[in-house]
């Protein structure tokens, strides 16, 4: 019985991790192509406020008895979208550089999240902060898996549709606009997609390490790729391998799962980095 139980949660972690890695591949490529790493980080930092909001709703106002995990995903998505929209509004003012704005937003919203969390804990609610910051194997439930695979399919489908215009905007925004690409809606859709990925993958690696899942496999894939499409597929594959390495290390040496997965992808990155010294440029 005990072994069966352990197996089930290992399988859930593996399935969840692989699902997240597959989605993170193409998305992570666009994040590094568009130099938006700090944007991803900002949304991830904001996710904590979303989690606290979800608990608050569950604690005080859950009249419809929505599943807590669904509520947490939805509230995180909501906060991430709000922060992304706030960024778009602030960017349009053209008064501060984007990285400055992101620095202000990321840490303000993170602090707000931590303060709100402290108030909730004062009310007697127990929340495993560590688990949300760095990910927790034990918190992955079946509902989370539905979110990862349901939301993930939606994201991948929208990526097929967005691919060409988004790539074009990434290469030269004004050229794309002259040739008829609807720049603003596509950029907004992309931001929305980042928010959705962060909301559904938060459980696996935690809000502080999500950006690593997006960036490291993509940067690793660059060393093997000759086309953008190749790079995004390789990024997904490398992410999957990192998840397996992370789970293995976590299981055998009792290491925390989120950091183990990130460490796994860092190892793959180092390997590709050294290996590629021998490849002709």
């Amino acid at each position, binding site marked *: 019985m005990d072994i069966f139980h352990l197996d089930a949660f290992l399988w859930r972690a593996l399935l969840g991790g692989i699902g997240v890695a597959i989605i993170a591949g193409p998305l992570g490529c666009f994040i590094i192509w568009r130099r938006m790493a700090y944007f991803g980080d900002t949304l991830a930092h904001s996710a904590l406020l979303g989690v606290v909001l979800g608990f608050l709703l569950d604690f005080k106002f859950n009249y419809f008895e929505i599943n807590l995990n669904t509520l947490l995903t939805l509230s995180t998505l909501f906060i991430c979208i709000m922060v992304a929209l706030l960024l778009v509004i602030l960017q349009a003012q053209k008064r501060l550089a984007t990285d400055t704005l992101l620095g202000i937003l990321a840490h303000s919203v993170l602090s707000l999240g931590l303060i709100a969390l402290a108030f909730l804990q004062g009310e007697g609610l127990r929340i495993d902060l560590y688990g949300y910051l760095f990910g927790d194997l034990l918190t992955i439930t079946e509902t989370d898996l539905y979110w990862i695979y349901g939301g993930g399919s939606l994201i991948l489908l929208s990526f097929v549709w967005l691919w*060409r215009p988004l790539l074009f905007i990434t*290469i030269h925004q004004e*050229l794309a606009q*002259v040739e008829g690409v609807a720049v603003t809606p596509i950029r907004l859709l992309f931001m929305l997609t980042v928010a959705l990925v962060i909301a559904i993958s938060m459980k696996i690696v935690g809000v502080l390490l999500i950006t690593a899942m997006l960036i490291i496999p993509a940067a690793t894939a*660059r060393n093997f790729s*000759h086309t*953008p499409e190749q790079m995004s597929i390789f990024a997904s594959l490398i992410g999957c391998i990192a998840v397996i390495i992370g789970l293995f290390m976590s299981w055998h040496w009792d290491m925390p799962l989120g950091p183990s997965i990130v460490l796994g992808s860092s190892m793959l990155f180092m390997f590709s980095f050294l290996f590629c010294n021998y490849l002709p440029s």
Partner: protein
Amino acid sequence: MQSNYLVRVKNISVQFQYNIVLENVSLDVQQNKIITLIGPNGAGKSTLVKIVLGLIMPNSGKILRQKNIIIGYMPQHLHINPILPLTVERFLTLGDIKKDKIKSILDEVGASKILKTPLQHVSGGEMQRVLLARALLREPDLLVLDEPIQGVDVAGQYELYDLINHINQEKQCGILMVSHDLHIVMATTDYVICLNKKICCSGHPTTVSQHPDYLALFGSKAAQDLAIYTHHHYQNNQQISA
């Protein structure tokens, strides 16, 4: 000017914050003609180009475009993030275009050798040719070229202008071009507009080059200095890339 325009800009003014960028500028871009915008830095050349392209809306004035006009745009820079793996071929297929067409256009601009080269590895002159090919692939009625000879060596500059002239004659399209290099402009263009927030003077190159406003703005010595400056600029680029 006559009424058979491709794009007509009428009395437009543009203001950014409290800064007047363009004031009461009008211009007609016609089929089969090359119009060149010259003017000092900050004269509003690029802004005017963006208005013609529809990227910026003016604060006042009108823009009229012929129905279903196709505009091919060759931007000033194309900086590709080194982490994006992109060959010349893949860049040119972005707009849903067939591969054999790409080959013939690259032949036309003299860049067929670099079809499979990553964009980050092509030289300044090759990059301008690729961007020109990209603009031509759409079979445009109007070509808009923002400083097409940037970062190109002197021999290459003449080649590129020859190419632009050739395209103009063969494809019968209108060309609107921004340029810094006065000497070459004088030789290759039908109509010059000298811009410094408003239109100082315009007309055939030989008329403009003797116009008092033009001489006041550039002067014969300043025109020479400008040519030397571009040359220095090029040398610097070469040192960096070496």
